[in-house]
C-alpha cells in the first residue's frame, strides 16, 4: 500500500550504471511462494558471490551503505519486466528515494503507486550529484524534500528537482489511487453506455461457441 512521502534523510548509495533492469533489481528465484522475502530479493545476484556469501564490493553491501535510504543511478533505471517486486524490494530495504538520470516508464509508475520517490536529475545535474554522492561516500546523509523539491547535503549547494505537480501531491498525501478514480464512477458508467451504442462489441466479450 501507498506510504505518503514528505521528506527523507538518509545515506545515498551510488550505483553508477545505466539501464539497470528489473531482472537485476528483483530476479525471479528458484523457490518462491506468495509471501516473498522482498528484503532478500533486492539485487539478489549482484549482492552475492558464487558461493552465496555477500559480495563485499557491491555497493549496498559496503558497511557505509547498508542502511542507505537513497539510491543514485544512471539512465533508464528499471527497464524490462513490469514486476512490482522491483519496487517492493527497495522499500523492504528502507530505500525511499531513487535519484536517476531517467526512469523506464512502467517502473516509474510502480514507484508512484507505492510511495517510492523517483527523482529525475537531467544528465548534467545527475553527473554532478553522483560525483558528490561518491565523494561523501556515506559519511553524511542527504535530505530529499518533496515539499520544497530540494536535495540538500554535504559537498555543494541544494539541488532543485522537477516533478509533475500531480505526482508530487499524490506522494505527499499518500492518495489512494483507486479512491481517486472512483470519484469518476458515474463518468465510467456513462462511458460504458456510450460505448454500448458506438462500438457495442467492446462492451461484450462472449464466446460464440
Amino acid at each position, binding site marked *: *500500500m501507498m506510504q505518503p512521502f514528505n521528506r527523507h534523510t538518509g545515506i545515498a548509495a551510488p550505483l553508477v550504471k*545505466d*539501464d539497470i*533492469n528489473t*531482472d*537485476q533489481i528483483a*530476479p*525471479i528465484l*528458484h*523457490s*518462491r*511462494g*506468495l509471501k516473498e522475502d522482498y528484503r532478500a530479493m533486492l539485487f539478489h*545476484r549482484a549482492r552475492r558471490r558464487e558461493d552465496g556469501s555477500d559480495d563485499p564490493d557491491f555497493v549496498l553491501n559496503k558497511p557505509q551503505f547498508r542502511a542507505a535510504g537513497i539510491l543514485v543511478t544512471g539512465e*533508464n533505471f528499471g*527497464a*524490462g*519486466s*513490469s*514486476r*512490482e517486486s522491483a*519496487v517492493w524490494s527497495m522499500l523492504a530495504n528502507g530505500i525511499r528515494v531513487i535519484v536517476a538520470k*531517467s526512469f*523506464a*516508464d*512502467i517502473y516509474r*509508475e*510502480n514507484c508512484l*503507486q*507505492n510511495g517510492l520517490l523517483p527523482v529525475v536529475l537531467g544528465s548534467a545535474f545527475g553527473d554532478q550529484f553522483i560525483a558528490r554522492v561518491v565523494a561523501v561516500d556515506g559519511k553524511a546523509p542527504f535530505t530529499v524534500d518533496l515539499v520544497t523539491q530540494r536535495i540538500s547535503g554535504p559537498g555543494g549547494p541544494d539541488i532543485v528537482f522537477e516533478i*509533475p*505537480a*500531480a*505526482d508530487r*501531491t*499524490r506522494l505527499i498525501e499518500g*492518495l489512494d*489511487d*483507486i479512491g*481517486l*478514480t*472512483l*470519484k*469518476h*464512477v458515474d*463518468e*465510467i458508467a456513462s*462511458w*460504458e453506455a456510450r*460505448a454500448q451504442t458506438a*462500438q*457495442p*462489441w*467492446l*462492451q*461484450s*466479450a*462472449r464466446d*460464440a*461457441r
Partner: protein
Amino acid sequence: MQQTLFDKIWNFHRVAQRVDGRDLIYIDRHVLHELHAHHAFAQLLKQGRPVRRADLTFAVQDHTVATKPGRDDDTNPSGSAFIKAMREGCRTNRIRLFDVDDPEQGISHVVAPELGIVLPGATHAVPDSHASTVGGIGALAFGCGTTELAHILATQVMALKRPKSMRVQLDGRLAAGVSAKDVALRIIAEIGVAGARGHVVEYAGAAVRAMPIEQRMTLCNLNIEMGGRSGFVAPDDATFEWLARRPFVPQGAQWDRALRYWGTLASDEGAGFDREVRLDCATLEPQITWGTDPSQVVGISGCVPDPAALDPGRRAAAASAFGYMDLAPGTPLLGLPIDRVFIGSCTNSRLPDLQVAADVVRGRHVAEGVVAMVVPGSSSVKREAEAAGLDRVFREAGFFWGESGCSMCAGGNGDRGEPGERCVSTTNRNFENRQGPKVRTHLASPATAAASAIAGRIADARRLAPGAA
C-alpha cells in the same frame, strides 16, 4: 485537425480527466496472469472492493506452468502457490480462467488474439511488459504493475499520462529468410533500449503491410525493448481476415458493423507525430544480439563490435557485456559454438514461427551436445502444430516438444540453462542471468535458432549445409 490512430483510440477511450491531470482510459479487455493476480485479488479483498467488469476480464496461467508432458499444478513446485491462488481468485470473482489443463491455455499475449478476445481499436491491459504484442492486430495495449492491475479490476480504467506519439516507417520488402524479429532487433539497435520511452509507436510502411499478422505481433512484442509505452500496426484487410470466425469476435450483423468501423482505423494523412524513424528493410539480413541488452545487435554475418566504433554512451554497457558473454571485439557471430536453443515465448511461438523453424529442421538432427526445445505459445498452437506433423519433425530431430507457457523466456517455470551455457533464443530479453544464472543469451529469429541447433553453432539458416536425415 488530422489525428493519428493513437489519438483516435485514446480520445475514444478517454472517460475523464482526474484531478491530478491523468486521463482515465477505459480498458476494453483485461488479461491477468498468475505472477501478479493473487496480490491484486488480496488487495481488493482487503479494501472490500469488487471487480467492476469480470465479464471483460480473463486470466491465463502462463509464467510458472511446467512444460513437461502430463504437467499439473505441482510439476513446477515454485509455481503451484501462484497457480492455485489465481484459480481461487478467478472462482470467487467469476473471471474466465484458462487454467493449466484448459485446451486453450497458453501465453496471454498469444491466447488473447487467437481467440479474438482483443480487437482492433480496443484497449487492452496485462500486468506484463509485453502486453503490446496484440498491437499486431491494431489494439492499443498497456503493460502495468500489480497495483495498477488492482486498479483496473476495481474501476476498468487506467489512470495514464498521455504518451507522445512516434511512427516507425519500415520501407522496402524483406529478403527471403528475414523476419519481423530481425526488423525489430535492427530498430532497437538503431534507437537504443530507451529510444521509444514515453511514446506509443505506430509501425507503418510497405514492409509492415506485407507482414502476416503473426509477424506484426512479433514486431509489436519487442516494442518494450526500446522502452515504448505501447506499439501497434493499423489494422487492414489482412487483420480482419485473420480475426474472422475466431470465437470471441462479434458475430453476424455486429461483425459487419465492427468491420465498417475498423476500416476507419488509420492515421489521417498529414497527422503529426512527435518523433519519426525510418528504416529501409530491403537490405536487411538476419539479426542477432551479441551482448546483454536487446540493442546490442549485429547482422548475422557481422562481428562483435569494437567499442571504439560505438556511440560513446554505449561503450560502458558493451565493455560489461564482453565479459559476461565471453566474447572479444572482432569475433564473428557465425560459427560460435552453442549449448542450447529455445524456440518459444510471446515473441516467437505462434504457428508460422514453428513452421519456419520446422522447415529448417526437417530431415536434419540437432548437433551433438546441444539441448534444443520448442514450446508452443498456446495449447491451441500446439494442437495445430501437431495436426501439421511439426511435433514429429522437431522430435525426430532431437528437440524437446513441450506444453505451452512462457517457459525459458524468464525461467519462471524452472526451464533454464546451466551456468556458462551459450543459448540461441527466440525470446525478447538477453539480460544477464535471465535464462538461468550465467546463461549467455543470443536473441534471434526462429529460423536462426533452428539453424543454430542443427549446426551446434550460430548459423545462418539461408546457408545451412544440406543435412543428412
